[in-house]
């Protein structure tokens, strides 16, 4: 039986540790600064003269791609380095509860960072009359992208006790899923195998996220994100079980 209480105890500890160390402050400041610069300067937020957050959302997956592995790299690698993994996994706690608890903490933390972008939303509402339902869809999509990247990063962190390796592995794997549907990539793959190019388009995150930012929530996209997260969390449990004492 999966215990929600045990999972929440892990989540609570993890969240506290973000805020007990400078990790939280650094992450949130860099995230907001990057999003600000990218949206207002590179994204032509004002010159476009349109009341929406399209420039804001178009950069978010790339900012997450860079910053999410920085949150997840410590999740398991640090437990392994400190030896606390032995303590954690000899408490009466299932692997799945520990894995889910850590993931939820990281996800909640990303949700906080995302919520702190509310000045963008206020700005666009002051300057015009945007479709706030579309903006809400965009935020939902952004949260799902963050969750997907986090699940990859958490699994990569379980592979090693070296945080730098965990960061690079997570970045590399997330990058593949982020760019898989780009014409540059699919055209290249299609040259050797068209079937593989179709597959690349299917597993890619970007197109699905873009439809969220247009205000289209499709069931298959939601299912994609949740099964993606589920798959990587499952993999995470398997890796932890297999390599816990290495």
């Amino acid at each position: 039986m999966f215990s929600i209480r045990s999972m929440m105890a892990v989540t609570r500890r993890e969240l506290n540790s973000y805020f007990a160390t400078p990790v939280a402050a650094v992450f949130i400041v860099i995230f907001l600064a990057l999003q600000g610069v990218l949206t207002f300067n590179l994204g032509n937020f004002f010159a476009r003269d349109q009341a929406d957050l399209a420039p804001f959302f178009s950069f978010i997956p790339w900012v997450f791609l860079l910053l999410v592995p920085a949150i997840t790299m410590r999740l398991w690698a640090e437990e392994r380095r400190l030896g606390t993994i032995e303590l954690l996994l000899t408490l009466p706690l299932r692997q799945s509860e520990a894995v889910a608890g850590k993931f939820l903490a990281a996800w909640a933390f990303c949700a906080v960072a995302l919520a702190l972008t509310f000045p963008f939303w206020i700005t666009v509402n002051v300057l015009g009359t945007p479709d706030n339902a579309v903006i809400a869809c965009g935020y939902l999509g952004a949260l799902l992208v963050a969750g997907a990247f986090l699940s990859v990063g958490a699994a990569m962190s379980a592979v090693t006790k070296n945080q730098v390796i965990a960061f690079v592995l997570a970045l590399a794997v997330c990058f593949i899923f982020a760019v898989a549907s780009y014409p540059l990539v699919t055209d290249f793959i299609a040259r050797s195998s068209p079937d593989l190019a179709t597959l690349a388009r299917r597993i890619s995150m970007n197109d699905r996220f873009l439809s969220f930012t247009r205000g289209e929530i499709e069931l298959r996209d939601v299912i994609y994100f949740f099964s993606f997260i589920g798959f990587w969390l499952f993999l995470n449990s398997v890796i932890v079980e297999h390599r816990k004492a290495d």
Partner: protein
Amino acid sequence: MSALIEIAGLTKRFGAFTAVDNVSFDVARGEVLGFLGPNGAGKSTTMKMLAGFVTPTSGTARICGHDVRSHSVQARRELGYLPEGAPTYPEMSVLGFLQFCGRLRGFSGRELRERVDHAVALTTLGGVRLQPVETLSKGFKRRVGLAQALLHDPAVLVLDEPTDGLDPNQKHGVRELIRQMAPSKAIVISTHILEEVDAVCTRAIVIANGRIVADATPAELAKRHPSGKLDDVFRAMTAPKTAEAA
């Protein structure tokens, strides 16, 4: 009454190296078992298998009748375990850390507070309860680990070098504590401090190269050498028999 700890044919191989080789013993309530051996003899690996952290290559271990592999969570509920080096989360306060462990043990509200207070009192951590663990000295850290193992008043205590890094007064305190708890529990402590065996153990197992080479009371063990000293017995049993030693 059956033994609280039952270990049968426990073996662990890492590749071609056999760390623990067919180790079997039982520990009944009221017994304090000293687990002795030189560094690298397989003490910690045996304890890690008993705690369910390392998966045995073959053999079984049971805690209060629960197999540590098939009924891992039930077994861990009955177990208080101090891992080697007493790992703790450095950024957490003593209180926060113990509350986290208590929550994972299923305590909440008033009961959690009482359990934590009791464990803090037993290990005399009252003066540092709000300090981050990373600011504490080695002896205090060890006692934090010990407090965590005692939180739920477990039937089985497995302590890997519980007095390592403590000053003589603290060592005395911990030994007194073990003696007090002994009648109601089955306790295993690993150590290479032989005076400790004399001081608290009712029985001693000597392990060398992964195998049990002696299993007797400390007094019986001491008689096996003409000098009557545990030191000499230990050396005769575990010293590598190489050409340079001759």
